[in-house]
């Protein structure tokens, strides 16, 4: 019996003003509805233009559970195609990245497709001469994803034919992406350094909520960040701060630090921590970089760009990024209790390599399968995923600093320990799960 599919009121009832029902994390049917609606109606990050510099270059990825291939068409534009042969459904592009050559060619029966998905050739075409093949869905080739938008080389897609436009969906939240990109003296990023892939045995939304959870670092990460602080103190007097200590130590900042840094929410579930300052504010300067920025932008603008140190920006539903260290994570839903976390890193074009080195170190220390910070985060998610099966209380609390006037369309700056952004995400969740 279906409890949620086709029952919009039942879905709406899962999200209250300051709490959500545990089924949003544990119910397989609800996960299936998320894949069919939420991940169809929202704009989901696909890839970066620097991954497909030449014609027919491609990467393969997923939007929700839907396999897609992002490629560079012969006219230079970026295309996103459903990665499924229209004939028998075989996945056409199989590697994480590559170049298709003249055509995407299905390995099963050699149907060949142009980089816009249209059919270039089918062997023995006369077999279809006396059929109505031309009016079949197969004749369209590899179906292009309904809506694609490239924003300063970041490629997003919406699977649904109709729905909210890109600008309306993201609005002012794009300022976080802008700040990350502007940190390059030429305003350009390149994917660099490989991708860390970390499998989590928990629902994808737990990870997204944790991004703006500022009352956990000094608790859950005391064992790693606190130890780094202690070992940092043992280093010789006057020695430069060890890079790992510099990255770990701010996690141990007191509650007041996080309260003061602020959280900003935007409509449609986007938001960020670190309005005035963040754990990324006090990294040591990289020699030569500031001068390059001043030469490129002028001193005032350079200071404005580098003085913005937002912590985590959430691009609802499943992307997050850190401008000050040029890192991005994608939370790919696999099952109701399984999520693949991909950590991507960027090179600031024409900036010193030392910046990329720090970016890679940060991702390795915090977000890798070998990261002690990651270990303790995952421990919390897994314990929650298991213990939410308790019937003692089916509700998960998100009431911290709740205000009675909150709506899904607010832009607001609030106390940095508020759970406002988590509530903001769930208001957007309802909006795109149950479109009006």
């Amino acid at each position, binding site marked *: 019996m279906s409890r949620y599919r086709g029952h919009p009121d039942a879905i709406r009832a899962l999200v209250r003003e300051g709490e959500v029902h545990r089924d949003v994390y544990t119910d397989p049917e609800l996960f299936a509805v998320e894949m069919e609606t939420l991940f169809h109606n929202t704009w989901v990050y696909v890839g970066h233009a620097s991954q497909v510099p030449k014609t027919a270059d491609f990467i393969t990825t997923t939007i929700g559970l839907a396999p897609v291939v992002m490629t560079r068409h012969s006219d230079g534009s970026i295309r996103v195609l459903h990665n499924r042969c229209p004939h028998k459904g075989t996945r056409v592009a199989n590697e994480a990245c590559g170049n298709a050559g003249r055509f995407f060619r299905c390995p099963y029966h050699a149907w060949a497709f142009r980089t816009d998905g249209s059919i270039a050739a089918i062997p023995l075409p006369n077999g279809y001469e006396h059929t109505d093949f031309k009016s079949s869905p197969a004749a369209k080739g590899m179906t292009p994803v309904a809506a694609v938008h490239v924003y300063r080389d970041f490629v997003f897609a919406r699977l649904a034919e109709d729905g909210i436009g890109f600008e309306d969906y993201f609005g002012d939240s794009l300022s976080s992406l802008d700040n990350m990109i502007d940190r390059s003296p030429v305003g350009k990023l390149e994917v660099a350094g490989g991708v860390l892939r970390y499998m989590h045995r928990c629902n994808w939304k737990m990870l997204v909520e944790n991004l703006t959870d500022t009352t956990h670092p000094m608790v859950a990460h005391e064992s790693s960040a606190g130890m780094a602080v202690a070992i940092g103190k043992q280093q010789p007097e006057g020695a430069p701060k060890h890079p790992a200590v510099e990255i770990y130590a701010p996690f141990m900042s007191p509650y007041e630090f996080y309260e003061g840094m602020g959280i900003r929410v935007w409509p449609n579930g986007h938001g960020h921590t670190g309005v005035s300052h963040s754990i990324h504010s006090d990294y040591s300067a990289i020699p030569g970089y500031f001068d390059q920025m001043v030469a490129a932008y002028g001193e005032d603008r350079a200071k404005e760009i580098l003085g913005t140190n937002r912590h985590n920006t959430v691009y609802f539903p499943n992307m997050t990024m850190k401008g000050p260290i040029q890192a991005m994570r994608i939370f790919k839903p696999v099952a109701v209790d399984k999520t693949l976390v991909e950590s991507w890193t960027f090179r600031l074009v024409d900036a010193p390599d030392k910046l990329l080195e720090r970016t*890679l170190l940060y991702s390795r220390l915090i977000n890798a*399968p*070998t990261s002690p910070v990651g270990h303790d985060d*995952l421990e919390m998610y897994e314990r929650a995923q298991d213990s939410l099966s308790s019937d003692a209380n089916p509700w998960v609390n998100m009431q911290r600093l709740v205000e009675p006037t909150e709506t899904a369309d607010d832009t607001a700056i609030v106390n940095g320990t508020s759970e406002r952004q988590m509530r903001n995400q769930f208001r957007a969740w309802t909006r795109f799960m149950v479109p009006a």
Partner: protein
Amino acid sequence: MSATVNAPSDEALSRFVTREARLIDEQRFDEWLDMFTPDARYWMPLEYGQTDPILHNNLFYDDLVLLRIRVERLKGNKTYSQKPKSRCHHVMQAPSVESRDDETGTYETWTPFHYLETRMDEQVLFAGWSRHTLVLRDGGLKIKLKRVDLVNCDSAFGNIQLFM
């Protein structure tokens, strides 16, 4: 001449590498750290055949400070991902001596291994090759570089909490 006289035999190099894995399996991590030179690295590449640990990411590229942070953390009573603790187990092929330079006291070994890490009801098997760069310091062997190449280094992993 004296360097040659003091040079470790192949068997001694092999014993050293085997002992290193045993210290990990017995979780004698302080003794394990004492096997490294102060400027040593423990490196686990992210990419098959990776050559650059600096501008490409890695699963580990730890110096001694970072290794010390990890080891001390494992002892702590607020280390929640270690409540309960993990255990681990190595099975190794006999280390083979790949190169020896008795003049500088530098040796390289190659050791295929299976490594198992377990916690609660889960156990995960890893397979790979360790390459040790060993150096003579004050008459004894030390690890200058331990490079661990996993067969599936680019797979999506859950937690890897101990050391291979």
